[in-house]
């Protein structure tokens, strides 16, 4: 998987970072599925990464899981393909190249059974973009679980995205779980966080889910100590 940031966070503090994405155009666009498939096969890995892994950043309601599925389902009105592309779990793949092949294969399969070529109107094409990620401190740090919970509730959504979604591609595990395990020795909680299915939640939902899991752990501890 492509390196997209610094190495894994270490040390007793958890320093929250956040990110913004600077959008770049490739100038390439697809008007129909044939062009979409061809461009998926040839476009830069950065572009595939953006349209799949960065989708949660713009996700408001869970309907699709990546830009290709969204365009197929909504603009081309190829609902079946939208569903099939949404069902691809990008975290299952060891490399962007493997993911690229799977996306193209799914579109190719659909095209075999749907020979009627549907072409969108000018302005509705699929525009292939890329991004540059700017990473910067979120202005919050935590030394223990209670501070962590508090910070988690007010940091920017892009901070949750950066540590919880994007970290999986950077270091194979989300930053929160890594810190809970390595700095606080909370293996069980780290595991529970890691097991959350990223594709099934928006960033806002993930924030709530994480907070409730941590709250539950803290409450249990308080009850034990009484």
């Amino acid at each position, binding site marked *: 998987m492509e390196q997209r940031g610094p190495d894994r966070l270490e040390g007793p503090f958890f320093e929250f970072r956040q990110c913004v994405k600077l959008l770049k*155009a490739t100038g390439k666009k697809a008007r129909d599925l044939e062009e979409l498939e061809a461009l998926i096969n040839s476009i830069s890995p950065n572009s595939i990464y953006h349209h799949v892994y960065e989708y949660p950043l713009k996700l408001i309601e869970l309907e699709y899981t990546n830009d290709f599925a969204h365009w197929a389902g909504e603009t081309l009105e190829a609902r079946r393909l939208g569903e099939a592309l949404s069902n691809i779990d990008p975290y299952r793949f060891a490399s962007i190249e493997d993911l690229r092949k799977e996306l193209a294969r799914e579109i190719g399969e659909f095209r075999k059974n749907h020979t009627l070529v549907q072409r969108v109107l000018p302005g509705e094409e699929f525009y292939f973009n890329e991004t540059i*990620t*700017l990473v910067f*401190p979120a202005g919050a740090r935590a030394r223990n679980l209670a501070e962590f919970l508090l910070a988690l509730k007010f940091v*920017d959504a892009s901070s949750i995205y950066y540590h919880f979604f994007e970290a999986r591609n950077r270091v194979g595990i989300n930053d929160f779980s890594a810190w809970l395990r390595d700095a606080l020795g909370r293996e069980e909680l780290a595991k529970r966080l890691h097991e959350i299915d990223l594709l099934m939640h928006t960033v806002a939902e993930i924030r709530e889910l994480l907070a409730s899991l941590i709250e539950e752990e803290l409450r249990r501890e308080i009850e034990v100590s009484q």
Partner: protein
Amino acid sequence: MILEAYANTSPKSDLRLLRLLGKKFEGRSFLHINSTRVGGGVAEILHRMIPILNDIGIKTRWEVIEGDPEFFDITKKIHNALQGKPEEITPSMWEHHFEVNRRNSEQISLEADFAFIHDPQPAPLIRFKPEGGRWAWRCHIDLSAPYEEVARRVVDYALQYDAAVFSVAKFARSLPVPEFIVLPSIDPLSEKNRELEKEEIDEIARRFDIPPGKPLILQVSRFDRFKDPVGVIKAWRMVRKYNDCMLVLAGSPATDDPEGPRVLEEVQEFASGDPDVRLLLLPAFSDREINALQRLATVVLQKSIKEGFGLTVSEAMWKGKPVIGGAVGGIPYQIIHGHNGFLVHSVEGAAFRIRQFLNSPEMTKRMGERAREHVRNNFLITRQVRDYLSIWAAVEEPGRTSIMMV
């Protein structure tokens, strides 16, 4: 501190990154060049942006090239051609375009660590760029379907820059230089968008004879066919069969469009005799009036059938109004259908959605709140400044997909 003024409006994260970028480029120079100091969205936003940039420590200058009437006739033709209109630009016209830029290069100091050259008028200045520094060509025009013969010449200039910057991906075209996308923005503190006192709003309502209590449907736009003012009246008439409400169409006549006066006449005729329709012909710079009208509205329309970016949508959304917009140009970037407004494709669609809003004040309020948040997170000037400086960081470190700011 100018940036402090945005502390209660812009997202904290944007302000934090802006300060970091300010620190990164502290004392270095950023030059903007365009062709007019007044009128138009580019000048409007530069007026607001330059003080912010200086405030965070970047030595920012804004220069305006000067030209004779012939030059501006030529650049108007170039502008139209880039938007698809076939225009003949003769070799001597191109030469004049270049020559005016050459003369300007002798008058304006082009020394800068980073420069944004806005639109085609000053594009040839790249030929006079001093050693060092990096330049980006900032194109505010939709280049997706241009008149090719003219576009090729402009692109020849663009290719000599370190980067090109477009407003949305669909306005861009494939170029062998890095191409960045920076969505336009509104300034929440400008006269057009700042918070207004209730008395100010009431006074403007009285002046325009807008009765209190009656739901108000509003479209703010030039009287031009692409904004479909007749379609708006038709939609409102359909709504009127079910809901008591009034319609205000506010804007200025399209003076640079030969069809402008005819369109206005058509609209006046179509609306005549209906006391609940108001056509407000506002003089230029009626920013406070537009601000108040948007705040008075129950539902705002931007029923365009062709549009650039359509920032009036964000202006209304910032005031907590859900907008019903045509699904064209930059409107779908602002309105997320069914979440913070509705995208429509017909008069009937517009009428249906107006009725939905009028019959569901709760939904109107909820979507309006989401509209404001969407603008806060995506369409405020602080985000645009942030993006411009991020491009500077990116062109200084080409090939990087990730930049750490600490």
